[in-house]
């Protein structure tokens, strides 16, 4: 068991040294890929994929970064945000709605899954109260760019927030986030009616 932890720690250190945002890591695939990894090995690597910012947030207080100054933290995070070519407000509102939470499936969505934590469309009852309600979001006069950054990398505004950094990890592509922003700011969307 000792070995397990040691090995894990070593892999972790190795990756920490080469710590880069996931989006950048993707560009340099390694040759070792061909070797088939055992499940145990895979899990160990996945755990050691923890980046330096996640590590800073992994203390019992959870929502306060440890070891990194808050301003630096925000600046680093903001630097990772990539903007789509067509601007932060996308055109495909229907796609935005589906990513936000498909009303046909009771607000389910494999990608955005916003209703898990936020309420919005009054027709969807099964919405969480972890985040603030997004009812009438478009009417609050919030800059769409801020909305975009919030979804792309919420830690740029609110370090160690519980909101997943959806763009940073590549869960949503920049264009997809732009569509969600469009859906949230559209005056005709059920959120704002």
């Amino acid at each position, binding site marked *: 068991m000792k070995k397990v932890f040691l090995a894990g720690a070593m892999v972790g250190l190795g990756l920490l040294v080469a710590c880069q945002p996931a989006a950048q890591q993707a560009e340099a695939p390694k040759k070792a890929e061909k070797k088939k990894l055992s499940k145990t090995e895979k899990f160990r690597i996945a755990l050691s994929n923890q980046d330096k910012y996640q590590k800073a947030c992994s203390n019992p207080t959870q929502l306060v970064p440890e070891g990194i100054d808050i301003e630096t933290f925000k600046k680093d995070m903001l630097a990772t945000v990539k903007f789509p070519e067509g601007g932060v407000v996308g055109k495909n509102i229907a796609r935005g709605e589906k990513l936000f939470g498909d009303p046909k499936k009771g*607000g*389910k*969505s494999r990608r955005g*899954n916003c209703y*898990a934590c936020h309420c919005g469309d009054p027709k969807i*009852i*099964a919405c969480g109260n972890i985040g603030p309600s997004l009812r009438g979001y478009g009417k609050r006069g919030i800059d769409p760019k801020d909305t975009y950054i919030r979804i792309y990398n919420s830690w740029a505004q609110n370090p160690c927030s519980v909101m997943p950094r959806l763009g940073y990890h590549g869960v949503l592509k920049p264009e997809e986030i732009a569509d969600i922003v469009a859906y949230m700011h559209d005056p005709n969307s059920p959120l704002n009616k």
Partner: protein
Amino acid sequence: MITRRDLFKVAGVGAVALTVAPGMVRESFGAPKKISIDDALKEHLGTGLSGLKESNLIHIKAPTIAESGANVPVQVSANIPVDQVEALYIFADANFNPWVATVEFTPMNGEVFFATRIKLAKTSPVRAVVKMKDGSLLAASKEVKVTVGGCG
């Protein structure tokens, strides 16, 4: 009454058996034909929705919001002497086959009571219909909202 249900059952099983055969009638299976509540009532009771009499003697206990449609607890009781009752029917409107269960009572039961867990395809009323010995049909219903549970 029983022969009718048996017929239906046979038809249902037959349809499934057919679709299991590879490639055959897949299309018809892709969208199984939904039986409307009216048809289901007609099939089991011989009359549609209009033939039911709402009654406050029948109580349905079911959750208002269900986190999982697969397991909705339903308890039905009725303030009617059991020897006047022939059977109790439970229907769920939005299911492909709205008929869920039939309970035949005898005086040995002492009380009109039945509890079970049922499947609900989506938000819909759950109906309980009591068929009296004199042939009249008393009904009650309760709307159950089915939502997505957990993280979704």
